[in-house]
C-alpha cells in the first residue's frame, strides 16, 4: 500500500511539473508584442537574415512598441519543425516570421488546418513553390530573392569568354533547383553557348566522391543556393583549385570561403525588407495582404586570390562598375 501511495505521489508531482512548464510557456506579458521566428536549422546565411530582420524591426518600432522574439529552430529535423510550427500557432503570436522555403511550406500546410489570422511573413522562400498548392492566404506575405540566371551567365562570359562547358552541382532533393535548372538555367546557358554537365547529389559528402570523375574538359563549376551543396563548399573549392577551374556560386557568402565568383544578393537585404514590412504591419501602417516582394541579385563578388588559384584572370574593366548594372567588388581571403 505504501508503494502505491509513493507511485501516486510521484505521478502527481511529475504531472504538476509538466503542467507548470506548460503554464509558464503560455504566459504573456502585457503590452509586449510576440514575434515568432521559425527557421529550419542553424546556418550562417539564415542567421544573417534573422539578425537583419530583428535589427530592422527593432529600429522601426523603437519607442513605439516592445517586442519579444521567440525562436523555433528545427535543427534540420522536419518532424521537429512540424511540431514547432504547430506550437508557434498555438501560442498565437502577434506576427510570425519564417526563413526559407521549408519553413514556409510547413506554415502553409499548418494554416490549412489552423485557419490562424495573425500576420505571417515568409522570408527567403520560393513563391512559385508555395503557390503550387493554390493562391497564398490573405495573411501571408513572401519576401523572396529571385535568381537572374541570364545575367549571371552573361557576367561569367564577360569574365571568362572561353567558358564553354560548365559543371552544375545541385541537390537533387531540392525541387526548386531541379525546376530552375530545366526551365531557366538551361535555356540561359544555351543562349550563351555554354554546354551543361550536371552532378545531382543527396548529401554534402557525396561531392568529394563524385566530382573528380566529372571534371574532364570542364571550364567552370557552378552551384545554386541549395544548402546541401553550399555546406560542402570546401570540397568544391578543393576540386576547383586542383583542376584550375573557377567556382561560380549563386550566393555571396561562398566567395569568402574560396569560390572565385559569387553572384547574388546580400542575405541581410532579405532580412531588412522583411523587418521593414513587419514593422509597418505591427504599427498598423499597412495591411498584410498576400504581398510578394522580389529582390533581384545585384552584386558580383570576386575573390582575386581564389580566382588566381582557380586559373581565372580577371579583366581590368571587371574591377570597375559594370554597364550591365552589377556592382563588382573585390574580396580577398587572408
Amino acid at each position, binding site marked *: 500500500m505504501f508503494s502505491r501511495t509513493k507511485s501516486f505521489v510521484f505521478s502527481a508531482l511529475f504531472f504538476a511539473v509538466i503542467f507548470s512548464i506548460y503554464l509558464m510557456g503560455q504566459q504573456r506579458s502585457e503590452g509586449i508584442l510576440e514575434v515568432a521566428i521559425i527557421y529550419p536549422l*542553424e546556418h550562417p546565411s539564415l542567421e544573417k537574415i534573422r539578425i537583419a530582420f530583428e535589427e530592422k524591426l527593432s529600429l522601426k518600432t523603437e519607442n513605439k512598441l516592445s517586442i519579444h522574439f521567440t525562436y523555433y529552430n528545427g535543427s534540420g529535423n522536419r518532424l521537429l519543425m512540424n511540431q514547432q510550427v504547430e506550437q508557434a500557432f498555438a501560442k498565437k503570436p502577434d506576427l510570425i516570421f519564417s526563413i526559407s522555403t521549408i519553413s514556409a511550406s510547413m506554415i502553409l500546410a499548418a494554416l490549412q488546418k489552423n485557419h490562424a489570422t495573425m500576420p505571417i511573413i515568409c522570408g527567403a522562400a520560393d513563391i512559385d513553390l508555395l503557390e503550387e498548392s493554390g493562391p497564398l492566404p490573405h495573411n501571408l506575405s513572401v519576401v523572396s530573392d529571385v535568381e537572374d540566371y541570364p545575367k549571371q551567365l552573361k557576367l561569367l562570359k564577360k569574365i571568362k569568354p572561353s567558358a564553354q562547358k560548365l559543371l552544375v552541382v545541385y541537390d537533387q532533393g531540392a525541387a526548386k533547383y531541379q525546376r530552375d535548372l530545366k526551365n531557366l538555367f538551361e535555356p540561359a546557358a544555351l543562349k550563351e553557348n555554354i554546354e551543361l554537365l550536371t*552532378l*545531382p547529389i543527396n548529401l*554534402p*559528402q557525396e561531392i568529394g*566522391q563524385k566530382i*573528380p570523375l566529372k571534371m574532364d574538359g570542364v571550364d567552370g563549376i557552378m552551384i545554386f543556393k541549395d544548402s546541401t551543396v553550399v555546406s560542402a563548399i*570546401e*570540397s568544391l573549392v578543393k576540386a576547383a583549385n586542383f583542376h584550375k577551374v573557377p567556382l561560380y556560386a549563386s550566393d555571396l557568402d561562398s566567395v569568402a570561403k574560396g569560390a572565385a565568383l559569387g553572384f547574388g544578393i546580400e542575405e541581410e537585404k532579405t532580412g531588412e525588407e522583411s523587418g521593414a514590412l513587419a514593422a509597418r504591419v505591427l504599427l498598423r501602417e499597412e495591411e498584410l495582404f498576400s504581398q510578394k516582394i522580389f529582390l533581384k541579385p545585384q552584386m558580383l563578388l570576386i575573390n582575386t586570390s581564389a580566382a588566381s588559384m582557380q586559373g581565372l584572370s580577371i579583366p581590368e574593366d571587371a574591377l570597375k562598375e559594370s554597364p550591365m548594372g552589377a556592382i563588382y567588388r573585390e574580396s580577398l581571403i587572408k
Partner: protein
Amino acid sequence: MMLHMLSIILYQSLLIFPLILGGFYTIVLMRLPDLALEAAFLTGATISMLVMAFLPKDMGHLPALCFILFSSALAGSSVGFITSILREKLQISHLFASIISIGFFTSLSRFMLGAPHVSLLVYPSYLDLQLLPDSLIKPELASLIVIAILLAVAHRFLLKTQLGLAVEIYGVNRLFFKFHRLKESFIAYTGTTLAHSLAGISGYLVSQSHGFVDTSLGSGIGLQVITALLFGVICSERLGFARTYQALAGVCCYFTLHGLLLISGFDLTYFTGLQAVAVAICCFYRRIYLSAPSEKVKTYGFGV
C-alpha cells in the same frame, strides 16, 4: 584519362578502406549488425578537427599526421567501447546499442564541433607529405597508400594470431568460449573497439579530403560498407583468394562500379536505388551460385 580514372578510384577506395576493414571485423567476422560504425566515423572526424586546431603551426606534417591518426583511432575506439559496454554489461542487443551510440555520439560531436559544419581548409592538409610531385595524381595519394599498406599488413598479421581467430570464432560459434571457459566478452570488446578505431581513422581521412567536418558525415555509410563487403565476399569466393583481402577487393570493386556509372552518364538521382539493387543481386548470386565454397579458396587456421 584511364590513368586519371584509376588514380581517382584508388584514391576514393583508400579513403574508406580502414572503415571497410573495420566493417569486415564486426559485420563479416563477428556477424554483428554494426551500425555504430557511423558514429565512430563521425567521432574520429570530429576529434581529428579538434586535434588539428591545437597542433602547433610549426609541427612537421609526418608527426602531426601520426598524432591525428592516433587520436582519430582512439576516438573511434571509444565509440566501440561504449557500444560494447551497452551490449555486454546491460545486455542490450547490438542493434539497439548501435542506435544508442549513434544518437549519443552524434550529439557529442555536434557539441564538440560547436556548429553543424566546420571547415578544415584553414588547416594544412597533413596527408600531403610531399612524397609525390604535383601532377594529375593527388598529392595525398602517397600517404593513403602507405597507411593502407600498414593496415593491410597489421590486418593479415592479426588474423593469424589467436586473438584474430577468436574474433572469427565469435561470429561462428560463441558456445566455443563457454565450453573452453574463455572470456567471450573480452573478444567482443576487443573486436568492436578495434573495428571502430579503424572507422575513426577513415573519418579523419575523408574529412581531410573533403575539407570539412559535418554532423551528417556518417549518413548513408552503412549501405556503402555493406555493399563493399558483399562485393569483397563474392570476389574472394568466386576468384578464390583469401578472405584477408576481402575488404580491399570489395572497396576497389565498389568504387570501380561507382566510377564507371559516373563516367557513363548514368543519372545519379537513382544511385542509392542502384546500390540497393546491387546488394540484392549479390545476395541472390551468393545464395544460388556460391552455396558451396570454392575449392580454390586458400585457408589457414579456421577458414580465414
